[in-house]
């Protein structure tokens, strides 16, 4: 598992990266009440805001961590946004992105580095 500064977790399987948000991020957001996902087969560039996530308190975004193509989205989150709070690093993944070059993951944090990042 790799982590971004934007509190996303990335899990690589072949050339497919599954993306979710960390437990820390889910806790900070509070009760999630709305999730809007990107369309499948969308080409995205790193930094594009592709997911809208709203808690009772605020609207936020998840950005594409890498260039690639969205190949799968987790529709269960649209029907049950609270899943993000219940199981952020498991059932509540947001999208899967097909990447060109898995070396791009190297720059992201590992778990220890991420824990340092959030001050744990």
């Amino acid at each position, binding site marked *: 598992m790799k982590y971004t500064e934007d509190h996303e977790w990335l899990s690589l399987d072949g050339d497919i990266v599954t993306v979710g948000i960390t437990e820390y991020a889910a806790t*900070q957001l509070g009760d999630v009440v709305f999730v809007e996902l990107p369309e499948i087969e969308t080409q995205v560039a790193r930094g594009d805001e592709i997911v*809208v996530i709203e808690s*009772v*308190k*605020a609207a936020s*975004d998840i950005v594409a961590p890498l260039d690639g193509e969205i190949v799968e989205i987790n529709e269960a989150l649209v029907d049950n946004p609270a899943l993000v709070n219940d199981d952020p690093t498991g059932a509540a993944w947001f999208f899967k992105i097909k990447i060109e070059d898995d070396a791009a993951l190297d720059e992201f944090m590992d778990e220890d580095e991420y824990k340092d990042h959030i001050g744990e």
Partner: protein
Amino acid sequence: MWVSASAEGITISGERTEGASQTRPFAAKNDAGRLRAWKGRNTMTDDAIAPSLTALPLAALHVELGAKCVPFAGWSMPVQYAQGVMAEHLWTRSHAGLFDVSHMGQVRLPKSALAALEGLIPADLLGLPEGRQRYGVFTNDAGGVLDDLMVAHRADDILLIVNAARHAHDLAHLRAHIAGVEAVTDRALLALQGPEAEAALAALVPGVAAMRFMDVAVLPWQGADLWISRSGYTGEDGFEISVPVTHAEGLARALLSDARVAPIGLGARDSLRLEAGLPLYGQEMDETTSPVEAGQGWSIGRARRAGGARAGGFPGAEVILDQLAQGAPRRRVGLLPEGRAPMRAGVALFAAPEGDAQIGHITSGGFGPSVGGPVAIGLIAAETPADATLFGDLRGKRLALRQVPLPFVPPGFKR
């Protein structure tokens, strides 16, 4: 609470935000639905924030209770506790929620000031009986609103409760017209709200059970005088309690030791007042919005209206009385988004799914936990048909909203 229609909630807009802490991972969107830079930046933008924050009298207790605190109007405020906004909101609607609203301004005036106060506020204050409080607004010459507040007519003085962000402004405004204005600085302000508030407070202060909605009383507790009003900012029955700082923590702990009472942060305070259809100064009204447009025309008593015993005589009277008679150019409206996406303050409203000029905007909006979906309040052109579907521009898409009467939840006031 003392403050029904004011109190500074917090919303996620370019102007005010509620939950944004320094460590928040995601940035709030601005009011146009566009994104601001994200990642750990503090999105609090209220211009009243002082460089150094004032701690509430109960700061230590908040920390002990697991509060997440954010800066608001110069104060470090608990936005939520361990339960989270959703659970806190629902708890208040079914039990009793304890809010620390000590940041709000408490201002005393001599009793003789009521007539002069009518020169600033279009409410029937001379007709306000002793032992009662009334909602009002300070108006400007254009008929806009400078702040909204509660006015309590007490045995020995007049007590005002004003918004934190407008406290300094209001003091200056009052002092320019009235002698003997005194800012109360040695008292905290707690609110106990919800259907079990009476039972919980009466266990400590039996006298509150006899109070009716908008009654005020001074009642003793452990040697301190509590200034209590039966009012609030949640749409529920409840009380606002001004307590000497020396006794504030003791009172809060005594209330929290009751199983019916839980601590509630400002996040839930905002969602509760939104569902209750109560206006927030700076959102539903401001210096360019009249009380009539903001749906607060009811607070202008008969005596202050055309043909009344003391008609007019307040700033902007010509504009406001004309709006009462002829209608205002804009009106406040309750809105239910037809989809699941919350639409927050600043979202532009249109009469059609495409084209056409903007007819208004959302002044407050978000997820209503008791409603179980998104809710919003908007300000729209008065000529818009009452049954027209409106369309909000959310991230470049026009999404439908239905106009509905306010409030979104039935009030629980004890009349």
